């Protein structure tokens, strides 16, 4: 390798300084503050050790929030990937409206989650929402439901909106991955008499592993960090059935319990790291 082609090591300096100032220092400060009772109403800060973490992991109300967040992250990741891949496979073929359909399916990604939340609030409305109106129109009025108010359907309803919102992004990444697969492999498979399923299983999917990895990691992180959509659609309700880590952090922070909310933030950060690195490691093994 030509050593002269490598950037000089001082090029790392500026990013490193920015990274330390804007990421490392706040993170370590957060770690320190999560062990205090720092709050909005008392100027004195006391060290409380790991008390906040003990509270989080021994109170089943907070554990339920962690479970909700994991369900949300895993369910959205699976469906966004499966549907996104299906759409990418369909839209990777030559046909007239291909580009138009790609644009339409990608469109929700460009909309603000807040706007999407408000639109779906109307769509799910039990009295005049499109979903219930449609069910009534086709004679299935009995299935009409208070989608966001019913404890059994609220989380599913929010998950569906998140899938709808970001499936286009997954689709685009998969299309890029599919276009990078050489036609030669597929032709060779055709000559060998491989069925469509066999081509997908043994040619396309292995070649798509980098796209699958990036989609899995991005979706899991987005799922664990979800806030705006839940905030607008249900604000964590009904009966905390859609409460996720970020809405709790927000509420605790709003009530002035900075130390506790920082501790929850740290829990979320650790969760996200474990999941993201876990997936990356597992997928790296697959790719090898």
């Amino acid at each position: 390798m030509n050593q002269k082609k490598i950037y000089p090591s001082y090029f790392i300096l500026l990013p490193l300084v920015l990274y330390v100032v804007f990421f490392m220092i706040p993170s370590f400060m957060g770690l320190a503050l999560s062990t205090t009772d720092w709050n909005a109403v008392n100027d004195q800060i006391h060290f409380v050790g790991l008390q906040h973490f003990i509270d989080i992991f021994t109170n089943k109300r907070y554990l339920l929030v962690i479970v909700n967040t994991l369900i949300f992250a895993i369910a959205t990741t699976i469906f966004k990937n499966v549907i996104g891949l299906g759409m990418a496979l369909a839209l990777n073929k030559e046909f007239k409206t291909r580009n138009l359909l790609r644009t339409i399916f990608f469109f929700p990604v460009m909309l603000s989650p807040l706007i999407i939340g408000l639109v779906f609030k109307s769509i799910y409305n039990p009295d005049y929402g499109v979903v219930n109106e449609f069910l009534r129109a086709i004679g299935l009025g009995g299935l009409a439901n208070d989608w966001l108010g019913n404890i059994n359907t609220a989380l599913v309803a929010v998950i569906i909106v998140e899938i709808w919102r970001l499936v286009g992004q997954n689709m685009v990444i998969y299309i890029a991955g599919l276009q990078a697969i050489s036609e030669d492999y597929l032709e060779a498979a055709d000559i060998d008499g491989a069925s469509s399923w066999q081509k997908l299983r043994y040619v396309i999917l292995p070649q798509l592993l980098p796209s699958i990895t990036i989609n899995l990691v991005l979706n899991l992180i987005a799922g664990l960090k979800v806030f705006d959509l839940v905030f607008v659609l249900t604000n964590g309700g009904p009966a905390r059935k859609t409460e996720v880590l970020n809405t709790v952090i927000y509420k605790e922070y709003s009530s002035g319990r900075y130390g506790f909310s920082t501790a929850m933030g740290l829990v979320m950060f650790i969760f996200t790291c474990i999941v993201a690195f876990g997936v990356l490691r597992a997928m790296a093994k697959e790719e090898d």
Partner: protein
Amino acid sequence: MKKQLVKRLLSCAVCTTMVIGMLAGCGSKTEENKDTAAPAESEAPAADAATDDAKTDDAGSKASAGVTLNFAASQNWIQDVDRDLAKAFEEETGIIINFQLSPDDQYQTIIKSKLNTGEGPDIFMSYSGTKLNDFNPEKNMVDLSNEAWVANQEDWAIQTSSYNGKLYAQNIAGVDDTNGVLYQPAMFEELGIKVPTNYAEFKEACDKLSAAGITPVYEFVKDLWHTHYWMEGASALALANDPELYNKLNSNQIGFADVPEFVTALEQLQEMEKAGYFGENHMSNIYDNSYEAMTDGKYGMIIIHGSYPNEIQTQFKEDLDPDIYSMFPSPLVDNQYVTLTAGGTTKCINANSEHIDEAKQFFDFLARPENVKKLYEEKPLYMQSAVKDITAAPTKAFTDLMNICGDKKAAGAEASVLFYDGGKISELCQEMFTGSLTAKQVLEEFDSSRRALAKDAGVEGF
């Protein structure tokens, strides 16, 4: 070699430009603020003297012209007349009022977050009484004790907007009254329903309404500010049974779960929900749809403030006669007391605002007799005037409620108990309705979160 040097220099220049750009980007707001704040600060004495001297008022106004005051409120607290007054103020002084409204169920959390992060608006609204404490008055609110308009305030309005002897809020608009169960006497008469005086009679009324195809009660569980009223409605009764109740709660001698009236109220609330008195969609019902619900005959009752009939008229149906409604006290725990709010909603100035003088000018403007009069005429929501020489026009429903209760009235827990959080109780009630908590557990859970906040705040006894 030369080429490499040029490349190095170029990359250094690009990096330096980026850093300068970033720093300039971070700093631009401060500079901008300095530009607008500087004249205001330099004219501050003139603005202070504005109430006494019309000439200096002009000088102060001119200096402040172009300043924008951000005014945060819950969406239903601001109406057309508030916007008209803000516009008139803008025309007179050049100071722009920018209303930042949040959904009713999110306002408290949003405004607290903004204040806690130092990004609070210049003016924000708050409930009065102990609810002012939620916003940490000494840290976040400007002391208004020495303002000229204070002299025209009724004593109760000053008391309920004060904290540790200092006035922190302007309650120009008057008390938001109390909560009672609103109904249409004509509907009750038609169905042969007697106005309930206890819980058993209330259930009987609900059953008769249900039998007639009317959903007995409009309850909107999703908007967290409301459901706890059913419990809070029993607080005057609980106080009558134990005059030291609020002191005991505020010193942590007891918790809400130890007060039998509150436990019973929630048990009965759960029973109402189970009996289907709230209809099918109560978990996603919202306040905004209550106007329609209470006028189209689909719902029979709602627990709400006494000014509500006027509100329906101004917000939803102009040709509605507010006198078709009446009210009776919250019937849970066989209550016959009326629970008073401390003074309704008030306006505060953010202590960290850069435009405190302009905000004070706005408060002076609102307190002028002609503007107060306009407010009371066009926003007939106030049952009792907070300003001397101004008479409020209470609704028939409110008057009926007061007549039923006579002298059986007292301030409610929301206005009197430290760290009372109605939103939290309502949220826990959702869990009670789904069967994951019992009435007692709701209050125990609430006590635990309230104690954590009080402990953080260093309140004695917690």
